[in-house]
């Protein structure tokens, strides 16, 4: 029998974490700019809100379709304080409502609220994994920090793609330059956090060290080195330092998005748990 759904969490959950992060980062960064500029960026922020709603919608559909009983999804909403997953579902709803509010009314309340809920959404995708003690590689407050950093970096990447693909987007050159500078800082920060994260995990509990091994040399090594480190962080960094032309910006944004997905995918897959006596290591993989 071919399994339609994995016994645990697979690429659908990784995609959900990624899409929620991108959606949060994209609207969050533009809403912040719009707030700081006193509402001058209403048009691009509104377009971004539409895109973020779409991304978060797709992510939520993936999450619901991954359930064994999709039609019982309401139970997750009716038990809001039961678990991180339920809290997160409500954060997503509130974030979506804030974006709708911005689309309808604009103004500083909704843009600032959007920033707050964007951070909450991106942070929640990390906390969802971070609270799971059984998988020590995830069980760290640095995981939400890493996911938030990546969310804003990939969010800005999507904004850059929008700006070059949509003529009517209307993001002025100064703002777009500012965003790419911020993205540059975020990429450097992400590299530093990943380096520290893996070093600390490598020296902690045995399962966490096994996770690091999986990323650096094991099953996830190709995606980790190729997708996340090289394509997703190092190349965009070099490109950004080399030139700030439109084409390079576009290329490096696409690479950043590949990196963002690889981050969620590899970190999810590498979360192993401790082994019982005689238990085969594969049993602890996700």
């Amino acid at each position, binding site marked *: 029998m071919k*399994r339609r*759904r994995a*016994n645990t969490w697979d690429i659908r959950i990784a995609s959900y974490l990624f899409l929620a992060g991108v959606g949060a980062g994209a609207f969050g960064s533009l809403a912040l700019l719009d707030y700081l500029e006193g509402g001058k960026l209403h048009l691009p922020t509104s377009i971004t809100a539409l895109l973020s709603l779409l991304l978060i919608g797709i992510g939520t559909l993936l999450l619901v379709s991954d359930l*064994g009983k999709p039609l019982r999804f309401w139970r*997750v909403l009716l*038990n809001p304080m039961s678990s991180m997953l339920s809290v997160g579902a409500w954060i997503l709803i509130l974030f979506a409502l804030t974006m709708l509010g911005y689309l309808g009314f604009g103004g500083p309340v909704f843009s600032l609220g959007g920033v707050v809920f964007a951070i909450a959404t991106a942070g929640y995708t990390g906390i969802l994994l971070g609270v*799971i003690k059984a*998988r020590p590689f995830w069980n760290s407050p640095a995981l939400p920090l890493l996911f938030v950093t990546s969310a804003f970096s990939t969010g800005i990447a999507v904004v850059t793609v929008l700006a070059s693909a949509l003529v009517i987007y209307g993001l002025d050159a100064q703002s777009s330059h500012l965003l790419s500078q911020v993205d540059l800082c975020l990429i450097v920060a992400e590299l530093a956090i990943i380096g520290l994260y893996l070093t600390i995990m490598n020296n902690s509990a045995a399962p966490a060290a096994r996770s690091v091994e999986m990323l650096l040399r094991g099953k996830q090594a190709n995606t980790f080195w190729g997708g996340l480190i090289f394509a997703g962080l190092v190349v965009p960094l070099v490109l950004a330092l080399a030139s700030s032309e439109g084409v390079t910006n576009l290329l490096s944004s696409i690479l950043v998005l590949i990196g963002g997905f690889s981050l969620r995918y590899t970190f999810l897959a590498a979360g192993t748990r401790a082994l019982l006596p005689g238990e085969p290591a594969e049993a602890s993989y996700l």
Partner: protein
Amino acid sequence: MTRLALVIDLNKCILCHACTVSCKIHHDLPLGQFWNEVFTVGPSGEFPHTSLYGFPKACMQCDKPACVSVCPARATEKDKETGVVKIYEDKCVGCRSCIVACPYGARAFDETKGTTFKCELCPERREQGKQPICVETCVGGARVFGDIDDPNSEAYKIVHEKHAVRYLEHLGTEPCTSYVPA
């Protein structure tokens, strides 16, 4: 309080897998799905001082279950009367958060039913005054079932007299199942 649990004597397990098989047959589990498994530990050491033993594993019926606090549907809980950690099939949304969060890999997702299951110490047999099926079929007499809070039960006596140990205690789940070390 009553806390029903297994005490497993690792010195008596002969690695015959009768518990695994009877559990699968009794609960009609699909291919590749287990509520109980026996791991082979070893062989280790150097001849003539070698050792090989079995480690049977099922849900540990934790006092602080890691599976419960991640359930978004309140579909799983520790039963106050028996101490057994139960899953309500009609409430489970099949998100598998509990499978990811259980430190012992004790839960299994049933693809056809769309919900998650695990060992609940055979409630349908307990109702009839019988022991869980794995205990009845254990050839080596390694599995003892009972109330680990009742000083008159055999389970209680073995836990205390043979200094049974619990696994992965540092994770704070406070498992009820314990093992007499090999």
